[in-house]
């Protein structure tokens, strides 16, 4: 299989996994630099009429109160799902959007910054983590810097948090009380051994973890006929990869 075909298959598994996690969500917001979640959210819109609020979009954006409105609706409980990624994501679902090395004065590599994660991770009921690049480096035992913690002590006001981590290799569910990931499914081409080898943190896993289901034909048709064009407004380069070549 060519590298492009592998990447496409990986991406499809991720899309399908995110879409499944969005089931039942009525209002879904998509942050900056999130083309894959954006595509899944627009699929949710096409399929069951979910309301999609996408940062950087004009068409898929009914905000009229400026940049704060996303955070305000999250605080009001009107937002069901959001997506976060990280330069690093660790086994406790801590995410690191700040950098590699010693923060703040000894960074070897600097990441863009936390965006709204240090807030939304606390208040949105379903936060779906995504990181295509699944390696020991990106998914370490412990992040170098905590830009947002996966769990909080019981007394901290935290109605929201992570529910899953979707990578280029697998889907992890997150158990908030245990503070641990457990393997839900492996993408095509992965097995238990390859996954352990590529993952820096420990996680729970059944021996018989299923293969991540792909998108249905209907989903593919929706992407081709509608969603690819819709996502192109905000992520033109990504949209090109969704279109048949």
């Amino acid at each position, binding site marked *: 299989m060519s590298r492009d075909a592998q990447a496409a298959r990986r991406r499809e598994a991720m899309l399908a996994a995110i879409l499944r996690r969005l089931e039942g969500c009525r209002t879904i917001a998509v942050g900056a630099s999130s083309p894959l979640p954006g595509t899944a959210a627009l699929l949710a819109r096409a399929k069951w009429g979910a309301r999609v609020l996408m940062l950087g979009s004009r068409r898929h954006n009914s905000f009229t*109160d400026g940049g*704060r409105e996303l955070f305000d609706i999250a605080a009001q409980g009107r937002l069901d799902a959001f997506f976060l990624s990280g330069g690093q994501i660790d086994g406790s679902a801590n995410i690191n959007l700040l950098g590699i090395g010693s923060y703040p004065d000894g*960074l070897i590599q600097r*990441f*863009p*910054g936390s965006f709204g994660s240090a*807030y939304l991770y606390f208040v949105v009921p379903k936060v779906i983590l995504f990181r295509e690049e699944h390696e020991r480096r990106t998914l370490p035992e412990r992040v170098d810097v905590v830009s947002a913690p996966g769990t909080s002590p019981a007394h901290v006001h935290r109605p929201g948090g992570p529910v899953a981590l979707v990578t280029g290799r697998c889907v992890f569910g997150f158990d908030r009380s245990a503070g641990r990931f457990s393997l839900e499914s492996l993408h095509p081409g992965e097995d238990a051994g390859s996954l352990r080898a590529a993952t820096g943190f420990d996680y729970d896993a059944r021996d018989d973890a299923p293969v991540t289901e792909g998108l249905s034909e209907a989903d593919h048709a929706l992407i081709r006929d509608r969603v690819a064009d819709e996502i192109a407004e905000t992520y033109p380069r990504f949209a090109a990869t969704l279109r048949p070549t």
Partner: protein
Amino acid sequence: MRFVSTQELVAGLAPGDLIAIPPDYSGVSMAATRALLRAGSDELRLIAVPTSGLQAELLIGVGRVAELEAAAVSLGEAGPAPRFADAVRNRRIRMRDTTCPAVHAALQAAEKGIPFMPLRGLLGTDILAHRDDWRVVPNPFTKADDPIVLLPAIAPDVALFHAPRADRDGNVWIGRRRELATMAHASRRSLVTVEEVVEGSLLAHEESAAGVLPAMYVEAIAVAPRGAWPLGCQDLYDADDVELARYAAAARSADGFAAWLEMFLGRTEVLA
């Protein structure tokens, strides 16, 4: 309120001024940025509302920036901001990390003249751990153990942004990009570039009035057609993704950055 050239617009900025700038998708005055790059003040302090991209990246790249508070600096789909990352790593700027709603809340505190604003979230983050200007207090409205973060107000000296249009009275149409209004309300003065000046008052009809930042907040306006390029301006034009990708590739090296900058500074503003 007065109408000035873009160069005059930025001439009033002084070393140490705290300047509020909008995110790439909102209304960035790249025209004023160009003027600042050509002949601007040093030691600027930037507060991104709540993130920045090309604007902070360029000003940092030429060494104009002493301090930056931002929830993120990124070139979006074009990738990371190389000059920003380099400057932070080598500690050439003082970086104050924050998170998006914290910037909005702190500006709203200044807008309302209150010394602080509470915000949920943040507890347990390394951002909070390194912000000695933030406080964690017990929520005084409950007997339960309920810590909450208090953010001090951020009152910028200047709000600097680009908008589609202004009228001759100095009212500026910002539409639903209301972070520009919050920035202007919170700042002592606002310096604005616009695509065009229109006849008649934007406040005369309720339809257009709804999207107006009133002149009472605006100190000076400069006309700068395509003044957000290579970023976009609302529904008037989109970001120039090709140019942004070109910048991202070039700016990985110091030489590439210098070459792109020469192009950008040499570019005569297109007059519509």
